[in-house]
């Protein structure tokens, strides 16, 4: 094929972002679930990371909303729906097999709602997501297409990790991964990075001390990384 439209390039980017947002949200909620076994309102720090107020009656209400409520833009279900919305129009690029894993994830999440052990019933989602990424590697022959998805994935991961105040060594590894992906982007495409925000990121994420002090500025620089990267798809 070897021809990608602007619309599809945006879809590829957001497929990477939303799939990663789903995965990282799910993992974070898994850890919170464990914490909430011992603590009432054990999720308030998590809400604080995203500047959200605690309007939830209890742990169960929070969990239900953040896992299954697809009208809550911060929920796992919402991210998965958006990932699927992008994936479904990319079938010929990502393959029916890759797409089938997003459908399986949707079905698994839906079934988990009625489970008596939610955490256990969500465990297969991790396998499904790894299989999805395996398929993306296996079925996409065009490096440009794969790289756009991976840029979306790493941008999202870095953003979430910084918001959730992940330790510096983990953030640094993800940043290096993003740099590698960015270096593969051809010039004159919307995913060619803007030099100023990238320089800011290099500066802030260069040392642990700077990261601890200026992670908010890093998040802002990351959001300005692409001229057309923040399209709403």
């Amino acid at each position, binding site marked *: 094929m070897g021809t990608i*439209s602007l619309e599809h390039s945006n879809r590829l980017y957001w497929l990477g972002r939303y799939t990663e947002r789903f995965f990282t949200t799910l993992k974070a909620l898994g850890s919170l679930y464990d914490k909430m076994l011992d603590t009432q309102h054990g999720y308030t720090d998590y809400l604080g990371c995203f500047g959200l107020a605690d309007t939830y009656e209890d742990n169960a209400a929070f969990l239900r909303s953040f896992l299954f409520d697809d009208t809550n833009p911060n929920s796992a279900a919402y991210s998965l729906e958006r990932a699927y919305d992008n994936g479904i129009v990319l079938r010929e690029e990502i393959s029916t097999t890759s797409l089938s894993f997003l*459908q399986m994830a949707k079905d698994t999440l839906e079934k988990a709602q009625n489970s008596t052990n939610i955490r256990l019933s969500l465990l297969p989602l991790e396998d499904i997501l790894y299989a999805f990424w395996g398929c993306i590697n296996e079925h996409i022959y065009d490096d440009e297409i794969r790289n756009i998805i991976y840029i979306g994935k790493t941008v999202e991961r870095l953003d979430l990790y910084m918001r959730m105040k992940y330790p510096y060594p983990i953030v640094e590894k993800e940043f290096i991964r993003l740099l590698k992906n960015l270096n593969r982007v051809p010039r004159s495409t919307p995913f060619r990075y803007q030099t100023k925000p990238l320089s800011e990121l290099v500066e802030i994420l260069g040392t642990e001390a700077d990261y601890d002090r200026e992670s908010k500025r890093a998040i802002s620089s990351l959001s300005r990384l692409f001229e057309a990267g923040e399209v709403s798809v």
Partner: protein
Amino acid sequence: MTALHQEQFTKAVGNAGEINDLLRRYGVKFGIYKNGEFKEQFFPFDPIPRVIPSQNFAQIEKGLIQRVDALNAFLYDIYHDKKIVRDGIVPEDFIYISKGYLAQCEGVTPKNKIYSHISGIDLVQAKDGEWYILEDNLRIPSGASYPLIARELTRIAAPQAFEENAVVDNRGYAQLLKETMEYANCGGIRAILTPGRFNAAYFEHSYLAEHTDSVLVQNDELFVEDNILYHRTYSGGKTRIGVLYRRIADEYLDPLTFLPESLIGIPNLMEAYRSGNVGIINAPGNGVADDKGIYYFVPKMIRYYLGEEPILKNAPTYLPFYEEDMKYVMDNLEQLVIKDVAEAGGYGVVFGSELSKERLEEFRAEIIAQPRRFIAQEVIDFLDLPIIDNGDTVMRKADLRAFVLSGETTKVWASGLTRFSRNPDSFVVNSSQGGGFKDTWVLSR
């Protein structure tokens, strides 16, 4: 399928659940608008296939090739010399007042003179075993992707059924389609034009694009420059398109030639097509040949263009346009099925037997007022096929859409879409009307 084989098969697949789960996993859906809202539904699949023995299929195959070749000859003739009209075989009225006739296509000759590259011919089998053609679909017939993916999944869910039956492999459809597209290619990449995700057949558009290595495009990604069609790339470049398998209706294709209000068309596409720089599958203007009124004349076309007797029969059809037929229709309205020639997808089909006395009289007046708008057909008592319904095997009405592909030669895909009614009292099998589908097995012996 013999009763014994059917029993074996049902045992082998267990129940429809397993295969439907797989179809769900692979996103086999179709879209439907209800009360103005778009909904995606999984297409209900019944695991008991329709089985066509080899000899029977050979006859159907010959008949379909003959029919499609005649229809292609008709289309060339209508947009050029119109000999068939001049020779009095098809009345002029049926050509020029047909919505499908497009004056803008006059004199345009597609590459290799093929107009209908992908023809979806709807057939039914009567209880006496005879096959009848119900309808020709020469514009954008859909449905091939469903049996294609269903076969792939059924072979996983019920391998034993394939070990025990000599079924012709149908999984070469994508390759056949690719070859057909290449034969119409005027130099460039292959593309499939979709109106977008919210089209009823979007699954099919994307699935066929994936399996034919074509680019799935929407109109805003395309432009015409110097009479050449291009795909606009994300880096600001352009890639030439040599063949466009369009899945949008003729009138929306090019706002500068057809409907100016079309938001899903490509300005100047028809100029690129007329110049021979891009192949369009199927050719614009084909609607004149699959008009329900023209259907009546297809056996005459076969005799006229090919000098052969039709191998497959039409369902007995009457045209109220002719005085004699009008009389018959008026006398027998309660027993006939009346079709509005402008409608498709199972809409505009009325069974006289289902109308109240009052409605029947109103309908009679409508036919008299607009005789060209309707055709009437005898109700064929078609063969019921077994389906699994909540664990029980029940019998339902079913038709068959056969796919005929015209490239270097005309070929019939050894499979097809068998659609069935889920309602025990209904003859309407369309998915938009709640119908399901089955695989169609052609046996190799």
